[in-house]
């Protein structure tokens, strides 16, 4: 990663324009050519520095429901419970974390009703209590992951 890559990552975390030739507009702003910008973005995507380039959608405003949930999994059942929970297509991400509540996952559904059904099904299949922690409020966060 060189100075140009850093410039692109630091300047392009938001505000990519919606217009006919957006790469041209951004390239001019950054003092690059359009071809150079496109080539750099492709390389940063190919080598995994960027996970994605494009619009980030807000799930709830698309009518979906999203929640964070946690379970306390006994150590000896960790692999079994991981398999059970990961098998739900509604479970989008799942992380092991250093805590008594040692498994944390995001449930993405099209409705709150489906969210509740998914939680109930997970509790029935695993025999474990699901601690549901939907967000009650979201605080504004600026974007600033500096490269």
């Amino acid at each position, binding site marked *: 990663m060189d100075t140009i890559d850093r410039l692109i990552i630091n300047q392009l975390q938001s505000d990519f324009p*919606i217009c006919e*030739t957006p790469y041209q507009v951004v390239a001019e702003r950054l003092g690059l050519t359009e071809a150079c910008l496109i080539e750099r*973005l492709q390389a940063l995507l190919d080598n995994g520095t960027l996970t994605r380039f494009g*619009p980030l959608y807000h799930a709830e405003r698309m009518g979906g429901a999203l929640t*964070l949930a946690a379970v306390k999994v006994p150590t000896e059942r960790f692999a079994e419970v991981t398999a059970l929970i990961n098998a739900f297509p509604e479970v989008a991400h799942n*992380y092991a974390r250093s805590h008594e509540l040692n498994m944390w996952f995001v449930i993405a559904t099209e409705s709150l009703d489906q969210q509740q059904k998914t939680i109930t099904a997970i509790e029935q299949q695993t025999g474990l209590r699901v601690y549901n922690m*939907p*967000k*009650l409020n979201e605080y504004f966060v600026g974007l600033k992951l500096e490269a």
Partner: protein
Amino acid sequence: MFTLDETDLAIMRATQSGLPLTPRPYQTIAEQLGLSAEELMSRMVNMQAHGVIRRIGVIPNHYKLGYRFNGMTVWNIPDAVIDELGEKIGQLDFVSHCYHRPRHLPEWPYNLFAMVHGKSQAAVDQQIKVISELLGAYNQGHEVLYSTEILKKTGFRSAG
């Protein structure tokens, strides 16, 4: 509340994994969907104005940028002041997400979640100290949960 129609959803599906790296990316997508570029762009502008599109840009991989220490910090804050303090913590430059979530008493007394990211454990420890000082006496207890393993990560593309 803004309601998406079928065309908006088609645009969302066609763009959620990324924009094409072609000189006229919106034209490229519009052609795939049988729309004019003008209609596609005006719908995307509208979705952005209503917050359905949070932002358009690069989404870096934390780890690749050297942010290998990612902690979920959780705090027990009096409900009366949580919004005021949550806004302040969201402004800190090392916090990427900040949410009010429900407690589950007695086991889980924490109601404020802030994700922090650092290039070293010392950097994250310092960040936690900054949050702790900012909260002062309103901090009635906190913990930091580090992820020890990614058990599942799907192509789900929107942020909570």
